[in-house]
């Protein structure tokens, strides 16, 4: 009887606190992708995400809005001015007191400094410009900190990551912390580190944002996806980036 109780207690503890992935065991989605997808990502002339980077480079230098200014007019050469920026996002915007991801940051810049209409969420232009900015941080370690004034946002993201939801009643953590490396139907379950966004996903046949990927997973567990730009979605992005702190950025990554 005592043994049974002990076993139940151990099981309860295990169920209540799913094991976080040890830093040494963290692996990018790249490691779970097939050799063909990896080869595609490694060769800049075969990586279709580079078409987005190329388009973003054009947009960077294009004058827009009432101010008739381009990104380059203020920020100069993106190779130096944008280096490391994507590794620090999502970040807190002191002026508005809310958390912004890179896409939202770009759109705010368009509105405030160029006087231009924001790009639509998930539009080709927004993804291209984001990919171009994030590309400048390729190879740099993710530097999002989860403490200080960001603590409450990370806590929210963490809570959402571990919360069961949807008709399948699954949390993100049950797949990506507890069962990574195993298979979900034909696909290997990765650890959910956002190391290469915007990614070129072969299934989408286009670049897509981390928020789009999150919405995908949520509809997969039959939950109602967050709207683009919802505070929950950005908090989840922040939590994932803080969780992947120190891992190298790969933008534009190629994923199946």
């Amino acid at each position: 009887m005592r043994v049974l109780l002990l076993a139940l207690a151990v099981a309860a503890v295990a169920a209540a606190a799913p094991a976080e992935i040890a830093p040494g065991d963290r692996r990018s989605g790249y490691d779970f992708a097939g050799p063909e997808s990896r080869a595609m990502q490694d060769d800049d002339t075969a990586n279709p995400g580079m078409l987005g980077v190329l388009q973003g480079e054009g947009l960077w230098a294009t004058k827009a809005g009432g101010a008739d200014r381009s990104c380059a007019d203020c920020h100069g050469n993106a190779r130096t001015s944008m280096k490391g920026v994507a590794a620090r996002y999502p970040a807190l915007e002191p002026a508005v007191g809310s958390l912004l991801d890179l896409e939202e940051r770009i759109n705010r810049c368009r509105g405030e400094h160029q006087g231009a209409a924001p790009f639509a969420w998930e539009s080709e232009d927004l993804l291209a410009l984001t990919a171009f900015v994030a590309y400048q941080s390729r190879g740099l370690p993710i530097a999002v900190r989860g403490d200080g004034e960001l603590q409450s946002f990370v806590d929210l993201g963490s809570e959402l990551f571990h919360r069961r939801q949807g008709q399948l009643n699954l949390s993100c953590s049950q797949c990506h912390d507890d069962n990574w490396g195993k298979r979900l139907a034909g696909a290997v379950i990765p650890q959910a580190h956002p190391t290469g966004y915007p990614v070129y996903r072969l299934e989408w046949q286009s670049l897509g944002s981390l928020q789009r990927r999150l919405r995908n997973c949520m509809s997969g567990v039959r939950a109602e996806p967050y709207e683009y730009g919802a505070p929950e979605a950005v908090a989840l992005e922040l939590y994932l980036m803080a969780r992947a702190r120190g891992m190298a950025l790969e933008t534009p990554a190629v994923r199946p």
Partner: protein
Amino acid sequence: MARVLINLPARARRGEIIEIKTLIAHPMETGYRLGPTGAAIPRDIIKRFLCTYNGEEVFRAELFPAIAANPFIAFFTVATESGEIVFSWTDDHGETQTEVRQITVE
């Protein structure tokens, strides 16, 4: 103009087999998908790809709706002499995009 990435060596030895890799931004819309209103999205694909080396055709491909967006085409040819390698993609509307690259053969 669609964005294009072409990878070929700038220099090669005479008689060397070289690999040429091309990638072009294109939706490759199949014509079988339905839009938000239920109407079919019209087909829009690249139908033909052609590569000439100093005017001589060295590679040609016909493309079909089952080919994914942003088609990537890689092939080999023999570096015979210095000159121009011309790539052209022709789509359903009959529009052709042409790109020219130089190669030096020693």
